[in-house]
């Protein structure tokens, strides 16, 4: 899975313009997450898709848009994992890279856990 993350202005029409770049190139995206971000009047758009070449092909075009401030591919190594586990010791929150979190869960064998992978 490839993830593209964008910082954009928060105004009507931005999604239409961003998605047009995908439509034009016949790219089917898997997920879109968008919302206002920590800076006022800015939004963050996170799009995931499966095709690496398509993602690489579209990113420069996204950067060229006036309303897009930054657009980057998210480095896989940077994927952060977050998990909540429940075991004898009580509720435990684990954060770290996806691999670290999974290794820790495996080792501690909790009774229940909810995991959130690739939380950005």
């Amino acid at each position, binding site marked *: 899975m490839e993830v593209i993350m964008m910082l954009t202005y928060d105004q009507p029409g931005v999604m239409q313009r961003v998605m047009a770049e995908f439509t034009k190139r016949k790219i089917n995206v898997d997920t879109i997450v968008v919302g206002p971000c920590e800076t006022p009047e800015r939004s963050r758009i996170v799009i995931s898709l499966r095709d690496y070449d398509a993602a690489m092909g579209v990113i*420069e*075009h996204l950067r060229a848009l006036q309303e897009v401030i930054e657009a980057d591919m998210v480095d896989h190594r940077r994927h952060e994992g977050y998990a909540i586990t429940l075991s004898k010791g009580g509720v435990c929150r684990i954060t770290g890279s996806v691999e670290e979190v999974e290794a820790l869960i495996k080792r501690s064998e909790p009774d229940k856990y909810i995991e959130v992978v690739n939380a950005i």
Partner: protein
Amino acid sequence: MKGAKAVVELLEKQKTEVLFGIPGGVLLPLYDELVGSKMRHILPRHEQCGAHMADGYARVSKRPGVCIATSGPGATNLVTGVATAFMDSSPLVAITGQVATGVLGNDAFQEADSFSLMMPITKHNFRITETRALPETMKRAFLIATTGRYGPVHIDLPMDILQQEVADEDMKKKVRVPKPRRNLSGLLDAVKLLEEAERPTILVGGGVAWSRAGPEITQLAELLTAPMVTTLMAKGSVPEDHPLVLGVCGMHGRQVANYALNNCDVLLAIGTRFSDRVTGKLSEFGVQTKVVHVDIDSSEIGKNVKGRVGLVGDAWTVVNALIAGLKERKKRANWKDRIIELKKECTCDYDLKSDPIKPQKVVHEMSVCLPDDAIVTTEVGQNQMWASHFYRCYGKRMFITSGGLGTMGFGFPAALGAKVARPESIVADIAGDGSLQMVSQEFATAVENDIPVIICLMNNGWLGMVKQWQKLFYDKRYNATNLGKSPDFVKLAEAYGAEAIRVERHSEVSDALKEGMKADVPMLLDFVVDPEEDVLPMTPPGKSSSEWIRGRCRWKGGGE
């Protein structure tokens, strides 16, 4: 200050000299404020032509052309003109009226979602929904149109914004637009490739025409002893009488240009997006070639042809950097001499002395007769390809054509815009009878506003280019290409108050052109040309340029 007055003031502050616009219901406040403005207003007879005029104006003046249309049908009519400018990276500021913000989205009278309509065919577009954003948006539009890669910008302007008060402090707001980042990290690699190349060739694209880097590229070519090949959009940006300039390449290009393109070992491509009309079959294009791709728009690098070395920056800057970087230059006398020799073999003038008139003859006479600062525009189709192949563009001559979108009916209004931008030059439109009939109402604009251009009509009674393809690739099953009942073009022009001459003999072509250059009113030269004449040589679509159709071309094809 009312919004409408603010718009007029902001346009004047941008040093706008001329507006090409058609008013309408929602634009009444704006047109009321335009009364007494020192900006010239030209009223085209169709919004599309207003955009083409602004486009022609921009291509000559290298400044944004401004066109105005009303909401709904005005905006939809403008779409073709704006898309034409977008595909050829021409700076426009297109303003459309819009219904008041209160009824926006309610299907009001003459409402269309022009913001969405224009979005994919502009570099950027705005819909102003708050009066305080008006001054900032207007300034930003002009900046965006001419920063980095040029392009059209559209502003959708609801009527109530024009009627509301704009605060003075908003008018004073300063605006900045980020400049595209230059990336010359590949410069050393590029220099190394060029230094070591045995058969370097330069492909000059439309970006060079906008950047006006022709003289520097010529200098670089002389340093490298490399031939220069141009795309259709770059025709005229390097002088075609220079021994190293081989002319336009591509589907209907000159064979020697295609030869150089296909046989070079290092290709320096500047300001071009490798259109399918240039490359033919993409998979076979330059299989053996190493490409150095220079473009101001980083998204173009590697889009169509995978560039091994990409340099991001405007043509003028990068070419100067390359000139400074080149030290050890190999002597490549073999390649240069061979190309110059091949070019000589490919320089036939097509001064065809037979009747009915051959279109090549008309273009040949234009090459001979027009002054060195003439501006030639073309429509789209056979007329355009004859012009690109046979017209000689050198000195201060300019060549303006709709290359990317291929809009029939572009040339005549663009010629009017060009003449407005440079009234001292002779402006001639090479037209076809199909194209001209799409915009013939603009004779009214030309006569009314006293814009004397020459229309050289290649009248063959057909939608010639489509007919040619039906002939070559569809077994002569002609369908919907014969323009059986065309008007009498001489009478048509005269009805509008223009002058016109019908020319039916090859011996009269040059005299008619001279007559046209003397005229101080718009002049139509109706050349009745041979309908059986095709645009050849040609590389068929989807084929590589080794599989060309020869026609009258006597070139030996590099003698392999």
